[in-house]
């Protein structure tokens, strides 16, 4: 995968705009007022979970060696190539639910309509056209982001180097924590 979805939980307000956008994208009408009337109700493929005092938007992690792909007895769950998200080919899904059993994140669901398994496909069609997934687009605070792995590693490197500076500076009182602690006394 060259792009992944990351979440900055400090920015998440748990407003659930992402959930609504996701459900709407998977509705029949794609129009909010009409989608709300559909039966079964449009299902969302991601959720904002409460974790302590935080809200955490969670969608399929598209694991590199994905347990759901490994266990699927019909090959319905697959990825087109190494860079693609994990998707379900409903026409091969016999509804046996083994994938739900092995997913560490609990993000696979039974589709209400035909009881095939449904899951986040990272809005694959949008991705192919250079757009971001619906949940990313809908997030008002920028808590959910689509980033390339290079961007992630770069910002991690930056964070790590800053931390090194902070820590090495603590003994010499050059900056940051150590200084502030002194000043506080």
């Amino acid at each position: 995968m060259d792009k992944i979805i990351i979440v900055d939980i400090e920015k998440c307000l748990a407003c659930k705009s992402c959930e609504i956008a996701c459900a709407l994208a998977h509705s029949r009408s794609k129009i909010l007022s009409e989608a709300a009337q559909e039966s079964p109700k449009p299902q969302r493929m991601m959720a904002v979970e409460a974790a302590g005092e935080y809200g955490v938007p969670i969608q399929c992690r598209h694991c590199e060696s994905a347990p759901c792909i490994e266990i699927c007895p019909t090959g319905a769950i697959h990825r087109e190539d190494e860079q693609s998200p994990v998707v379900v080919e409903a026409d091969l899904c016999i509804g046996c639910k083994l994938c739900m059993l092995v997913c560490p994140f609990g993000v696979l669901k039974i589709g209400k309509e035909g009881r095939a398994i449904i899951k986040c496909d990272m809005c694959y069609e949008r991705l192919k056209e250079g757009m971001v997934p619906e949940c990313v687009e809908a997030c008002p605070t920028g808590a959910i982001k689509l980033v390339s792995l290079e961007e992630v590693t770069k910002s991690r490197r930056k964070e790590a180097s800053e931390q090194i500076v902070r820590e090495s500076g603590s003994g010499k009182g050059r900056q940051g924590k150590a200084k502030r602690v002194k000043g506080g006394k």
Partner: protein
Amino acid sequence: MRKVVVIGGSAAGMMAAISAAVYDSNADVTVVSRDLTAYRRPGIPALVAGYISDPAGAGVFAGETLGQYKIRLICPAEVTNINVKTKTVSVQGEGKIQELGFDSAVIATGGYPIIPKIPGSEKKGVYTFTTFEGAQEIVEATREAETAVVVGAGFVALEIAESLMHKGLDVYFNVRSRILRKIVEPDVSEFLSRRFDKSGLKMLIGEAISEVGGAGSVEYVVHKSKKISTKVVIMGTGVKPSVSLAEKCGIALGSSGAIKVDNRMQTSVADIYAAGDCAESPDLGTGRFVYSPVGSIGAMAGRIAGANAAGGNEESKGFLRAQTDEILGMQIFSIGHSTTTAKEVNLAVTVRDLRAPVSGQDDRGAGSFETGKLLTDIDNRIVGAQLVSVYHGSQYAWQLYQAVLRGKDREKFLKEFNSPRRKFTETMLATAGSTISVENVGDDNALRWQNKLCQKQEQ
């Protein structure tokens, strides 16, 4: 060109056909199916709930998929005979009777619903639902009805009950023994019964209904000498293997009554294979042959049968039964053996209670479970696990699945399972069965093998 004929067009049959075509792309593969169109059986509750109105709503293995593998589908049509000497099957359908020759055949005729022998169970108003046609009758019958009685113990009966509740019916659920008897321990059954009852499913437990009464059609049932008015009785009491075709041509049956096969899914007759709800299958831990009518095993066995029918030499190391479902807000997981199934294969097991540090929804972020079980054999290897959760039980279920699949050592497993953040406790409950040692546990070759086929398919 090798001719492969598959009898049955559902999970096992279709996977056998695809697997045969993948194995030998020159093979001439034909599927004969009684179904109007192929559909996933687990889609049936969606029909009962009113979310879909025809089998196509839960359609699988569409023409496009089959076309891709050059598989010919003859449906709706019925195989009326297998002639093992001339290697032909008689097919009745499309307005004619034809003889199809084969080099190898796969029997994947599935199962048919058991109707318990209760006085009056032949009355109009008694339904089954293993096919869309059967379920369609339930849909018609429940359009006006206010009450329904579902008889059964397994997941599918519970799914149908929930679907009817969703439609606003008063639903009674009758279990002769206990809920999910085959796959969970007694106290888990009890726990679930209490919860379901609280959710509005009226439980009639501990005794079968003694009568289905009424003049002509159903008007009431009797349970523990209490009369309950209803016009609809649904039998969800499990399936029996459809073996009449196989029996007629002299194919041996196993002790369970399902078609006897070996680890290559071959029957007692050369070049004829069987898979799915009509056949037995090897159990992962013990290697013994059991009757496990679940779609996942049917599909895996179908793949092996199909590859071998096309000239391959694939062998199963045994299948691990693993099931999960969500019923009335409860996530239920059952992996590998329960004390009930362990007894069937003479496996001595020890059952332990697995308790999460928090129960209920207090610590929502971490996920939790209400009750859990860990089953080990005499060598302390994990052979089964059960979990009931209302919130993200899958966080633990996947670890338990891995543990059962690999037959992990219990103590080692618990060390991994208990991270610094969470501390699980377990209590020994009971030891059951006679002592028989288990060989072959801890082999993930079955999984590996599945992958191999997957990769082939992708190429």
